[in-house]
């Protein structure tokens, strides 16, 4: 089984974010890390390879700094990596990013393509789905489990309210992986050392003909939610006020 895992570098969860001057993205002087759902996607790919053999290739679309998530993937056990690199790669929307991935792997043949369910920065949750459409192959989202099945794979999807759905998919297929479906491994020091000699290919975004001009959507404004204090006085008979209060706590504030 040959598996491609798409991994994105995102601002670290607890990094103090500042909006950049153009109001469309954040300032770059923050710490970055691997998008968490993508880390689970990588872990699932490594487990599939350990169980059934094959190859795991990690791919990222991002500026030079994003190579770090590929080094981490290689250190954890990916066989090789592809960096689709461009200074403005972090400004691509889901469609343009999916175009970049589809073009970068044009000469390759993968049985499965894993992405995380969504990214922790833009959070569109679309890249994997659009990629499947561009490649003309099957896809399924919010994957909790992947098992081999006759002619393809059997996957468990997470639905709302604790429901699950089992699906059989033909290969090749794109699966977007839910966080928490396995236990993440740590990169060992030996793995980090070995990763230095694993292949890491760089493909320029420009050579693929992809740039933010392909974007189908644009960010109009990025801002930190403004905290406001508001005092409201509920008036009337105690019984009515109590009912109003309960309704507000339940419906507006959602604390009960």
């Amino acid at each position, binding site marked *: 089984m040959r598996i491609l895992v798409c991994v994105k570098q995102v601002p670290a969860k*607890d990094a103090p974010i500042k909006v950049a001057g153009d109001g469309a993205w954040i300032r770059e002087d923050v*710490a970055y*890390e691997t998008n968490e759902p993508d880390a689970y996607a990588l872990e699932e790919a490594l487990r599939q390879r350990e169980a059934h053999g094959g190859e795991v290739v990690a791919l990222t679309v991002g500026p030079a700094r994003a*190579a*770090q998530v590929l*080094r*981490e993937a290689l*250190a954890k056990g990916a066989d090789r990596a592809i960096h689709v690199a461009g200074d403005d790669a972090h400004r691509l929307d889901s469609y343009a990013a999916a175009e970049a991935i589809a073009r970068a792997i044009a000469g390759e043949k993968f049985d499965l393509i894993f992405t995380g369910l969504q990214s922790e920065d833009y959070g569109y949750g679309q890249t994997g789905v659009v990629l499947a459409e561009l490649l003309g192959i099957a896809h399924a989202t919010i994957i909790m489990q992947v098992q081999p099945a006759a002619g393809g794979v059997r996957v468990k999807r997470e639905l709302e309210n604790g429901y699950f759905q089992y699906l059989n998919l033909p290969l090749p297929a794109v699966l977007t992986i839910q966080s928490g479906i396995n236990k993440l491994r*740590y*990169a*060992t*020091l*030996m*793995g*980090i*050392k070995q*990763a*230095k000699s694993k292949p890491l290919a760089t493909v320029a975004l420009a050579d693929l003909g992809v740039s933010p001009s392909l974007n189908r959507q644009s960010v109009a404004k990025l801002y930190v939610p403004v905290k406001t204090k508001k005092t409201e006085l509920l008036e009337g008979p105690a019984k009515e006020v109590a009912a109003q209060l309960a309704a507000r706590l339940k419906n507006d504030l959602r604390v009960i």
Partner: protein
Amino acid sequence: MLKFRDVDFIGFASLLSDNERLVRDSTRQWAEANLTPIIEGCAREGRFPRELVPEMGRLGLFGANLHGYGCAGMSNVEYGLVMQELERVDSGIRSFVSVQSALVMYPIFAFGSEEQKNRWLPRLQSGEAIGCFGLTEPDFGSNPGGMRTRARRQGDEYVLNGEKMWITSGSIAHVAVVWAKDDDNVVSGFLVETDRPGFRAEDIHGKYSLRASVTSSLSFHDVRIPAANRLPGATGLKHALMCLNQARYGIGWGAVGAAMQCYDTALQYSLFRVQFGGKPLAAHQLTQEKLAGMITEISKAQLLAWHVGRLKDQNRADHGHISMLKRNNVAMALDVARTARDMLGANGIADEYPIFRHMANLESVKTYEGTHDIHTLAIGEKVTGIAAFE
């Protein structure tokens, strides 16, 4: 417990390669997930978390800067960053790893026979075997050359008699690297399996410091070991001191970690703790003066550790450089811990925050592996050419 935020005022991370940052971040993730949640409990109970040893071995934390025999072959800066992240959680845990790596695996690696290396290094690397290092004696601390422990040759064996004190991991070790005077009065290194008759290890109780690591005294009463257990390359006190240099180098980084944790705790605390007119403590000049001083000293210490690490990778770090690193960074960390304790007020004495534990730990770190004052004299000797130890 406050979540640690990185401490990097001067863009220190820009001095590190991608791989070095990956080593730091991976060790940090592991330590925060596995050590941080249990460390206060371990310190309170005086318990070393031995259950984590196999996992630490699997991650490659033991002998990380040695090459071959299953070791990770890290650069010295990478190794230092591992020490920083471990000691950021606890000096006792870092001490365990330092002893295993620098004081047990290193002498076997540097002075051992091929047979000794093959027998011990893979097992020590994986954590299957634990080691300890016996140099200090009850009456000989800063002056180890005066040691009384003897190894007398009898046929194909050596017979060891004597006592060692303040031995990290002593009672949990499978093998001890013991320094003793041979029949020619030469300080020599021996590998002593701890299940040999006449070997005893007793834990030192009542420690106010390094409570999450084991500290023991060792006694040797006619302990017979094969002559092949002598480390062939360890022929003189200078070889024991070479081991200490390896460990001190790691301590120089580890102390930075402890200081980073104390500083970050004090900073976060002073930002949320409000006193006098609704202002956080951090808005007061006396608090800012402390924070500015702490971050300045931490930044200088980071640069010193990094630079000595680069020198060490080029085989240009001498014992004077390492004395300066250990002396400066540990004293700095202890100052930072004490200041942080002060800034947390009464909360600084409770184990809800890691400050007091770090502060108490660092009292040991200041003393062991060459006291602060001994390193002062080592640097003094290097700059003047005059030894002032006696």
